[in-house]
């Protein structure tokens, strides 16, 4: 049983990058390097604090601040380390990348300097709001934090301020806000019902609601879950609510794309799991709905990825598909399923951030991102080429990379729960993922140098860009070869999420408790 301890750490995780953002907006106008230094310091500070949170939770302590408004358990810890870690890498990657964008005239000249200041400011706020989602224990503030992360990233998506970016930005803000408002409706229903059971402001606290969710009337559970799944699912890129995703991920500056695909989708699915899983023990059909939606998403994402010729759009659709796998894990609903979902969440975050950063390196050197125009880049950009292949094979689930381990766990969980149809579709879609990503990697990096890749100025990306990619590639390999390294944080995080009841109907009858529609009961009824 975890011990609760009051600590300022969960709040500080949010406060530090927010303070960095404020300083960037205030002081960044004076010098170019100051805003970059502040950005890196803010992100590094957030990572250091997140690691401290992770250290405490691994030792069985749940940290709470401000009257339990902020709360970090093992699940929150996993997410904050992931967000701040990839946040720091994206910030370091931005240093050379964004300066290069300015020199190349990728930005409107009149506003270049101001815009770079805004870039780092909003980047820090984006990271801070995502961290806030992960440590918020107040269900209404959870919504506020999720929407705040949409607002903070909205200006990053429209950063280039051209036709494509504006269209993507409009769709992004509009669709996500509509989606998230649905989730607010869900949060309101949960809070109102919870408050009537728990009394007063306790109904706002997720940690308290978890215990009361079993007493919710079925209609409330169905309605609230539907709103929450549609709402947070929109933000997590779950089909059919995903149309904003390929546009925003492709048109945003590359480090932001890496954050959007790498961690923002995960933060949204975290919000979904944190809220909806509280109904798992009492009402298992919710999990079945999530499973079906997950499988639908992984198929749609893969099929759409097949049709893309734009490197970043292809990666974005692949993210839709991989979020389907993550949701599939949570939809299986057993301990192993949730463990596998979290494992894949971690692996996809690393691998997809890597792929986006590698795609950015290609754009940095060649100025092109159309797959069919590129070729033979491995000769000139060996590090980028290696990193892209690592990312592609990891996402596709090929051994010895990390994606293989999590997909294996996922399929084992599906088979264990008797959801064979989902396992078979999942394996088939994995093959499509492999084809899509390896085909693109081959077209861009192998063969003869052609098109923009053959220019004399094309060479390996600068050190800060290469190092950030290399770190992610090494992590993909290490977790793939030695998955035990992440077992304990993942197991602890999975233990926080409630599972569906796997009691058999007979056993349930003996105990006099009837878990309404547990998976086994559902199967027996069929």
């Amino acid at each position, binding site marked *: 049983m975890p011990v609760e301890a009051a600590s300022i750490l969960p709040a500080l995780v949010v406060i530090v990058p927010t303070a960095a953002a404020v300083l960037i907006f205030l002081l960044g106008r004076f010098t170019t390097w100051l805003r970059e230094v502040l950005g890196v310091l803010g992100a590094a500070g957030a990572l250091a604090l997140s690691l401290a949170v992770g250290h405490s939770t691994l030792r069985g302590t749940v940290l709470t601040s401000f009257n339990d408004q902020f709360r970090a358990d093992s699940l929150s810890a996993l997410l904050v380390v992931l967000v701040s870690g990839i946040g720091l890498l994206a910030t370091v990657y931005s240093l050379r990348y964004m300066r290069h964008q300015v020199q190349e005239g990728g930005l409107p000249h009149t506003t270049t300097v101001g815009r770079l200041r805004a870039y780092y400011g909003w980047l820090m706020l984006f990271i801070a709001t995502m961290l806030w989602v992960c440590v918020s224990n*107040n269900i*209404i*503030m959870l*919504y*506020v934090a999720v*929407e*705040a992360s*949409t*607002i903070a990233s*909205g*200006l990053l998506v*429209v950063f280039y*301020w*051209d*036709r*494509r970016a*504006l*269209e*993507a*930005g*409009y*769709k992004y*803000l*509009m669709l996500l*806000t*509509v989606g998230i*408002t649905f989730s*607010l*409706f869900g949060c*309101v*229903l949960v*809070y*109102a*019902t919870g*408050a*009537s059971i728990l009394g*007063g*402001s306790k*109904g*706002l606290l997720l940690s308290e609601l978890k215990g009361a969710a079993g007493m919710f*009337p079925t*209609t*409330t559970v169905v309605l609230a879950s539907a709103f929450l799944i549609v709402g947070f699912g929109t933000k997590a890129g779950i089909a059919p609510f995903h149309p904003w995703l*390929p*546009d925003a991920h*492709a*048109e945003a500056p590359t480090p932001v794309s890496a954050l959007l695909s790498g961690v923002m989708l995960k933060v949204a699915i975290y919000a979904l799991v944190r809220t909806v899983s509280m109904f798992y023990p009492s009402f298992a059909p919710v999990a079945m709905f999530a499973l079906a939606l997950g499988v639908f998403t992984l198929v749609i994402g893969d099929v*759409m990825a097949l*049709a*893309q010729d734009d490197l970043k*759009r292809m990666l974005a659709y692949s993210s839709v598909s991989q979020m389907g796998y993550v949701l599939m894990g949570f939809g299986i609903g057993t301990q192993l399923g949730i463990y596998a979902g979290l494992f894949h969440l971690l692996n996809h975050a690393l691998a997809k951030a890597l792929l986006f950063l590698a795609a950015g390196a290609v754009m940095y050197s060649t100025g092109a991102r159309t797959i069919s125009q590129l070729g033979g880049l491995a000769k000139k950009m060996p590090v980028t080429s290696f990193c892209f292949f690592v990312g592609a094979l990891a996402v596709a689930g090929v051994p010895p990379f990390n994606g293989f381990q999590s997909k294996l766990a996922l399929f084992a969980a599906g088979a264990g729960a008797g959801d064979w149809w989902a396992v078979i579709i999942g394996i088939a879609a994995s093959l499509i993922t492999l084809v899509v990503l390896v085909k693109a990697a081959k077209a861009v990096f192998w063969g003869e140098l052609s098109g923009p890749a053959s220019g004399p100025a094309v060479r390996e990306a600068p050190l800060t860009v290469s190092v950030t990619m290399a770190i992610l590639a090494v992590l993909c390999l290490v977790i793939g070869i030695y998955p035990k390294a992440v077992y304990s944080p993942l197991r602890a995080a999975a233990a926080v999420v409630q599972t569906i009841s796997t009691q058999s109907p007979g056993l349930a009858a003996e105990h006099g408790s009837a878990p309404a529609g547990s998976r086994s009961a559902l199967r027996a009824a069929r």
Partner: protein
Amino acid sequence: MTGISPQLVHTLSLLMILTSFAAVEARNLRHSTIAYLAQALLICGLLLAYATLNEALYYWAATALVTKAVLVPWFLWRATADAEQETKPLIGFGISAVLIIALLAVMYKFTHAHAGLFVNATGELAALAETNLAVAFTVFALGVYAILTRRDAIKTVIGLCLLENGVHLSLVSLAPTIKETALAGIATEVVVTVYLLLYIIGGIREKFGTTDTFKLSELRW
């Protein structure tokens, strides 16, 4: 005795539907904005009516007045300075009216059948909450309807505001004892989102020469 006048609450919530309808159906974007402003004032009235239950709602009413009745309409007014007329919507007035009346009837039936599940109250307060919920669901649905069927980007923002109003009304009806911090967070969020959307739409007008969302066709697949 709850201290809330049932007639007042019923009248205010029903007027909410009328203002939503006007905001969605008015072809002139400035008329829509005025309808939205009227609705914002109605919400403030409702919040004041409920404030007898929870003093925090006075604060919420003031926040709503500033954000919904002043800032958002002001932003909308500025955004419609050059083009007051809306791009022709997908569905015309006649069909719209029929759909909206049907929607209201369904929502009424649903909330009156199920309100007991959400509303932890009895007697007068429960009846009030039932009506409010029906209205909240309808305003919410009208917002979704506007976003789906209107081609003009600014009109979709008005739809979004209706959507938010629906949820806020349900929040006050279902959980009138909520804390200020949560309310302040929600209220601020709406204003910032609307400001940002209109800012981006301004950019769209500059680059595309129109706010017709059908003309946004750079990104297809």
